[in-house]
């Protein structure tokens, strides 16, 4: 269901009937943690919001028990912008706890199911937002992407998922996982709707010192689009992904898009860098959840016991794991070896991309090495981390990237990732529209 479809299908009078349908159908999918009870006063296009984003007066849990009772007294900037520009929040969607995970199985509440196949995960961490769009509950939704949390579920659920340049969208009011990586982005069924929502939420925010306005220059229509494919990029991907990827190249070539091979970066190393830096920031950002000011608190005899009992009981295993790793990586004596070294390598990844984008408009990779996996199938954190190999690396450089569904004969969707240079978000979306036409996915 696109924005256009929604507007054609529902009138203001039957908006609560629409809500009732969503509520009924979501019993199978479990995409929402919270759905509004009455939409009769709402005007515009419904949008589902990942529960990582603060909504004034509406419980915002970040998928964690520790915030089970937390009601923000303020709206994230993106929510204010949406509500002022013709959108209304229909509800809050399920996610991996504090956005740590790739399947929603780390949600402290329940696991969301993939609307394409209920035995599969929808991906994560923004799995609820992806599923809500994929299931046709809403035309658009917001997610957050720290290492692939929008693009991977978009790929698993067969929809468009766009992660903007770091700083293109305000993070004010977005619960922090890893502050130098987190970015709000959009799920939709097509590029047009993606762009409509993105244009509404982007721009410099006085309350976010890292935010900025994007330059607005366009790609000339007469230009031949040149896409770079990193060498050996299909190493280790599943058969379905390989076929979908190659078919996409063929379709795009037919439509006059040029392809060149470009150097690859050391993806394994990039993943290692990511899993040092992100936990480091996590250990810092999650420190505020201490039971003192808001959220859940355990009774205790003294302060240390209050902290320990509260955090032990109400934080899940992945937040704990990353807090421990991050605390270690930042500790005196280890910080030089891990945190600082990882930052040097992060700069190398940025330099790598800067060089590549001197000669190509976009880089194309699979979004994920495999299609959606079965609920409960992935056992170890490392397996899960490896699934993010194509999406984490772009975040080291803060680049905009989009996952677009490939044209596949298989039942399960495959997403193709297109990456652009820093702040080239508008050009990426412009070219994505053309790619979308070529692929005729819709």
């Amino acid at each position: 269901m696109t924005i256009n479809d929604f507007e054609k299908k529902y009138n203001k009078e039957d908006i609560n009937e629409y809500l009732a349908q969503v509520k009924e159908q979501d019993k199978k999918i479990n995409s929402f943690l919270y759905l509004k009870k009455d939409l009769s006063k709402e005007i515009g296009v419904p949008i589902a919001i990942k529960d990582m984003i603060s909504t004034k007066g509406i419980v915002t849990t970040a998928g964690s028990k520790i915030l089970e009772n937390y009601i923000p007294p303020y709206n994230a900037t993106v929510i204010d912008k949406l509500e002022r520009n013709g959108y209304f929040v229909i509800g809050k969607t399920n996610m991996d706890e504090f956005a740590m995970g790739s399947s929603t199985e780390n949600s402290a509440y329940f696991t969301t199911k993939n609307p394409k196949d209920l035995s599969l995960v929808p991906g994560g961490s923004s799995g609820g937002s992806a599923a809500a769009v994929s299931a046709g509950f809403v035309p658009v939704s917001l997610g957050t992407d720290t290492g692939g949390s929008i693009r991977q579920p978009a790929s698993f659920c067969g929809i468009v998922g766009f992660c903007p340049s770091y700083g293109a969208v305000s993070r004010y009011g977005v619960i922090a996982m890893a502050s130098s990586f987190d970015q709000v982005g959009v799920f939709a069924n097509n590029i047009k709707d993606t762009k409509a929502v993105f244009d509404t939420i982007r721009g410099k925010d006085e309350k976010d010192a890292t935010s900025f306005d994007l330059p607005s220059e366009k790609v000339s229509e007469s230009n031949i689009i040149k896409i770079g494919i990193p060498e050996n990029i299909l190493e280790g991907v599943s058969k379905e992904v390989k076929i979908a990827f190659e078919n996409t190249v063929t379709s795009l070539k037919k439509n006059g898009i040029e392809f060149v091979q470009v150097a690859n970066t050391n993806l394994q190393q990039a993943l290692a860098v990511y899993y040092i830096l992100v936990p480091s920031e996590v250990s810092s950002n999650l420190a505020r959840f201490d039971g003192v000011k808001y959220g859940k608190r355990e009774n205790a005899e003294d302060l240390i016991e209050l902290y320990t009992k509260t955090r032990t009981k109400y934080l899940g295993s992945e937040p704990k794991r990353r807090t421990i790793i991050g605390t270690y990586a930042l500790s005196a004596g280890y910080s030089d070896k891990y945190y600082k070294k990882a930052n040097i390598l992060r700069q190398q990844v940025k330099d790598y991309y800067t060089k590549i984008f001197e000669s190509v408009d976009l880089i194309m990779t699979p979004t994920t090495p495999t299609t959606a996996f079965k609920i409960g199938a992935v056992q170890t954190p490392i397996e899960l981390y490896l699934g993010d190999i194509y999406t984490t690396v772009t975040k080291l450089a803060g680049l905009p990237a989009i996952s677009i569904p490939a044209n596949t004969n298989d039942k399960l969707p495959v997403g193709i990732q297109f990456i652009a240079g820093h702040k080239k978000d508008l050009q990426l979306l412009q070219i994505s529209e053309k790619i979308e036409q070529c692929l005729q996915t819709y």
Partner: protein
Amino acid sequence: MNYELVIGLEVHIQPNTKSKMFCSCSADIFAAKPNSHTCPTCLGLPGALPVPNKMAIEQLIKLGFAFGCNINLNSKFDRKHYYYPDLPKGYQISQYDKPFCVGGKVVLEGGKEIRITRIHMEEDTGKLSHVENKTLVDYNRSGMPLIELVTEPDFKSLQDLDIFTRELRLILRHLNISDADMEKGQLRLEANVSVRKIGEVNLPNYKVELKNINSFKFMLKAIEFEFKRQSEILESGKTPAQETRGWNENKNETFLQRTKETADDYRYFPEPDIPPILLKQSYVDSLAKCVDDLPIIKRERLKNELGLSEHEINVFINDLGLLKHFYELIKLSEIVNAKDIAKKLVNSKESQKLSAQEFFDLLKNEKSSVITNIDELKEIIKTVITENQKAYEDFKNGNENSIQFLVGQVMKKTKGKADAGVVINIIKGLNGNSLN
């Protein structure tokens, strides 16, 4: 005992700003209702972000100029981690390896030099209060800007410390950096105190941190106590423990707050929510002119340009409001000279409260009340002229300085009881006056 003190200071200064350090909450928090000056950012609510306060940074850089520090054009904020209920985010935004200012020094009265290690910016914490068996937190102070100034361990006596603190307070007030009111917590001192044998050049291998002492008087007492305590330990052949101590007002002694056997690990890393602060040279240069307002410069001006006495200068330098009033009066006065204004203001508290018009009337009346008889005045002037024929000739030839000299002589003869304006008029033969 042949021991001497070695003291380094850490000074926390609350700069004058309109809003807090990283949010738009009003900084006017003194005596405000608990938690009335808070927002998502200074409460550390999930998702809230910090945006640095330009004015606070400006205040810090001014202080840097006052001490001749190097200003880092490329600076950044860092997160300093520890858990405490008054610290809502679980970390304090501070500066680690790239503070705004490094180096610098101040030369104390008497020539003693104190080196400044660094001056950095950070945010303040909230305040805990314990009521019966409950602990309450007031976050009004949370996120208030704090300038931290760290000195080298260059203080050897309580007197050094006293002079430095007075001078620092004057600098802060004259540059309008802070009101530096210790009672309001706008100026807080921590001292790292150790003791060594006189003649020893190496720094002691331990230090005792004196913390949470809210009055300067008590800080001096605490250091005095520590000198005795540590000297005795050293005398017995032991080394005092590395620890933090406070001051017990009732017992008149320091007490152990916390031992510091290992270095704290604050897990500093660059604050990702605030991009590095890149200051333009031209912007920094524009702040440098603040040194014109340094008390030492103002002292010189009062002495050299206006000829005030040491005592008068001290009164004005220690009372900024009065100094400002003094300069306004000088600007408004046409005939009364600055020295007279200063003398009156310094010697009569009542005169300080008068409006400019009232003040000048008072001065005039006092003077004319002494010598009301114009003929008497003329006789004195005639005598002065006779005694200073050369100066009078010069005056007639158009030398303005000579008339000041003659007026001065008249003042001397009348012991200052003549109205300078009237004397000038008589000598010049103005307003119907003439010497004859």
